[in-house]
C-alpha cells in the first residue's frame, strides 16, 4: 500500500479528554486492522468435538451443579467454586491457590475458558474436560477419587436425572468413564462463561465501521494506552486476537523459583504431563473419532525454550481482582505495567529482537496503559438462575 493511500485513510479522532481538553488521535489503516483483530466480541459459542455434550443444555445444568458441589472432593468440603469464585472473576484473589495443600500457582480466571486450546498455566491439558478432571482427583486440590465421583452420579437422584438427560443413558458401571462424563459436563458449563462486551469493543466496532463520533467516546487515556499496547509495547505479539491471547506460551521475566532450589518448569513440564495423560485428545476418551480436533496435540513439539514459559493469559475482565501472573507475583495492574517497563533484559535470554524488553515508560504512559487494560473489563450481566429441578424432558 502506498504511503499516499495510507495518509488518505488516516482516521483522525477528536477526543474529549475531560480536564485535559481535546486530544487528537490518529488511527492509520494498519492500526485499525490490528485493532480489528481484537474482536468481534462476543465470539461464536465454542463447540468441542472431543466432548459430545459440549453446548447441551442438560449437560450445562449438570455441570453447574457439579461445579458448586463440595461432595466431589475427598473431604466433602471443597468444590470448584471454592477457588473459582463467580464474584472474583472465577478466581480467588490469592497469589497461590490453597487446596488440600498449598499450591505453587495462582487460580486462573475462567472467563472465556471455552475459547482456549491449552489449559492450565503450563498447558498440561489439551481440552477443557481433561483440565476439569484433574483437580477432582489431584491429592493437593480436591483429593477426591474416581469411584467416589461415580458413586455420587449413580446415587444422587437429581444428578442422575440430569446425567440421563445429558448423556441419554443412566450412569453406567464404568467408574472412570463416569468421571470423564462428569468432567465433560463441567466443561459444558464453563464454556458458557463469556466475559461481557466492554468500552473497548464499542470502540473497535465503531472504528471498523468508520463511525468516528462513536469511536471518540472511548476515553482518551485508553486510546493512548492502546497505542502503546500495539506500538512500542508490542504487547499484541502475544496478547493477540479477540481474547488478547494467542493461546500459546511465553516468558516475560517472572521468577519461576517456587522454593529455594526448586523451579516451576512451566510449559516444559506441562508437555510431559500432556503426553503421559490417558485423558488427552489422542486417548480413548475423546469423542472426536475423526481425530481432527487433536491436530495441535499431534503436532506440538517440546522445545528447550519451553523451560520457564507460561501460558499467555487473556486480558479481558482482569478488573482489579489481582494478583496477576502464574504465581501471583504482581499485586496490581500498575505493578504489571511497571514490570514490563523495567524488566531486566538479562533475565530474558533472547538472541534476536526481544519480544519483551524494558519499555522505560513514563508515569503518564504507564497510567494510560493501565487505563487501556481496565477498558477491557465491564460489569458482567447477572447469570440466569441454574436449573434446580431436573424434571422430564
Amino acid at each position: 500500500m502506498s504511503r499516499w493511500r495510507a495518509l488518505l485513510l488516516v482516521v483522525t479522532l477528536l477526543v474529549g479528554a475531560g480536564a485535559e481538553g481535546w486530544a487528537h488521535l490518529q488511527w492509520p489503516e494498519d492500526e485499525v486492522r490490528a485493532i480489528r483483530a481484537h474482536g468481534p466480541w462476543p465470539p461464536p459459542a465454542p463447540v468441542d468435538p472431543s466432548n459430545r455434550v459440549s453446548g447441551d443444555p442438560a449437560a450445562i445444568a449438570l455441570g453447574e451443579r457439579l461445579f458448586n458441589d463440595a461432595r466431589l472432593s475427598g473431604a466433602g468440603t471443597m468444590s470448584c467454586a471454592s477457588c473459582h469464585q463467580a464474584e472474583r472473576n472465577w478466581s480467588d484473589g490469592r497469589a497461590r491457590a490453597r487446596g488440600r495443600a498449598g499450591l505453587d500457582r495462582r487460580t486462573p480466571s475462567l472467563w472465556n475458558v471455552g475459547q482456549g486450546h491449552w489449559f492450565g498455566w503450563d498447558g498440561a491439558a489439551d481440552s477443557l474436560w481433561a483440565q476439569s478432571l484433574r483437580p477432582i482427583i489431584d491429592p493437593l486440590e480436591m483429593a477426591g477419587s474416581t469411584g467416589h465421583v461415580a458413586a455420587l452420579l449413580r446415587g444422587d437422584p437429581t444428578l442422575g436425572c440430569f446425567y440421563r438427560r445429558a448423556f441419554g443413558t443412566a450412569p453406567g458401571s464404568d467408574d472412570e468413564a463416569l468421571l470423564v462424563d462428569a468432567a465433560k459436563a463441567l466443561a459444558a458449563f464453563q464454556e458458557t462463561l463469556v466475559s461481557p462486551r466492554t468500552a473497548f469493543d464499542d470502540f473497535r466496532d465503531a472504528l471498523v465501521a468508520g463511525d468516528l463520533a462513536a469511536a471518540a467516546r472511548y476515553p482518551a487515556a485508553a486510546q493512548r494506552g492502546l497505542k502503546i499496547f500495539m506500538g512500542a509495547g508490542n504487547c499484541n505479539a502475544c496478547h493477540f486476537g479477540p481474547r488478547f491471547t494467542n493461546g500459546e506460551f511465553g516468558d516475560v521475566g517472572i521468577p519461576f523459583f517456587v522454593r529455594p532450589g526448586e523451579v516451576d518448569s512451566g510449559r516444559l513440564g506441562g508437555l510431559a504431563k500432556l503426553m503421559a495423560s490417558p485423558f488427552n485428545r489422542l486417548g480413548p476418551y475423546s469423542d472426536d473419532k475423526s481425530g481432527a480436533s487433536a491436530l495441535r496435540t499431534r503436532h506440538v513439539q517440546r522445545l528447550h525454550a519451553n523451560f520457564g514459559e507460561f501460558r499467555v493469559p487473556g486480558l479481558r475482565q482482569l478488573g482489579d481482582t489481582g494478583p496477576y501472573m502464574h504465581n501471583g507475583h504482581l499485586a496490581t495492574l500498575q505493578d504489571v505495567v511497571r514490570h514490563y517497563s523495567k524488566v531486566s533484559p538479562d533475565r530474558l535470554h533472547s538472541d534476536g529482537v526481544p519480544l519483551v524488553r524494558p519499555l522505560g515508560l513514563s508515569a503518564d504512559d504507564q497510567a494510560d496503559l493501565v487505563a487501556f487494560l481496565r477498558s477491557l473489563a465491564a460489569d458482567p450481566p447477572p447469570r440466569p438462575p441454574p436449573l434446580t429441578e431436573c424434571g422430564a424432558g
Partner: protein
Amino acid sequence: MRRALAALLVATSASGWPLPAAADCPLDLGRGTGWVMFSERAIVAFRPEPLRIEVGQPFSLLLNVCTRRNDPAELVAVDAQMPDHRHGMNYRPTIVPAGQGRFRADGLVFHMPGRWELDIDVRAGSEVERLSHEIIVK
C-alpha cells in the same frame, strides 16, 4: 498478508535456471493465492489451506516439487521461524506424499503476527536444498 500475496516469486538462488515448460512441472498450486519458488535444482509451487493464514490457527501446505534433472523429487522437511525473534513454531509439521511430486504438510501454526520465514527442504538427487519464503501475517 497482503504483502505476502503480492510477493509471488522468491528465489533463493535463481541464477541460470531455465523455467521448465508448464507441462514438465505443474505450477497450478502457485497460481492466484499460491507461491512459486525456484533454485538451481528445484522448483516448488505451493499454497496454504485454508488459503488465508490466521495468527494462531493451524494450517496445511499443499506443495508440488519438481527437480531440474528430473531426479525424483522429495520433500524432506517443512519448517518455519521468525528470523527477527529467532524462534520457530511450537508445532512440528508432518509431510504426507500424495504421489507425482505432490505433498501435503499438516500442523503448521504461526502463533504470532509478523514476519515468518517458511523453510522447505527438498532433496534433488543426492543433495538436499533449502528454499525459503517470507510470509507476513497480521
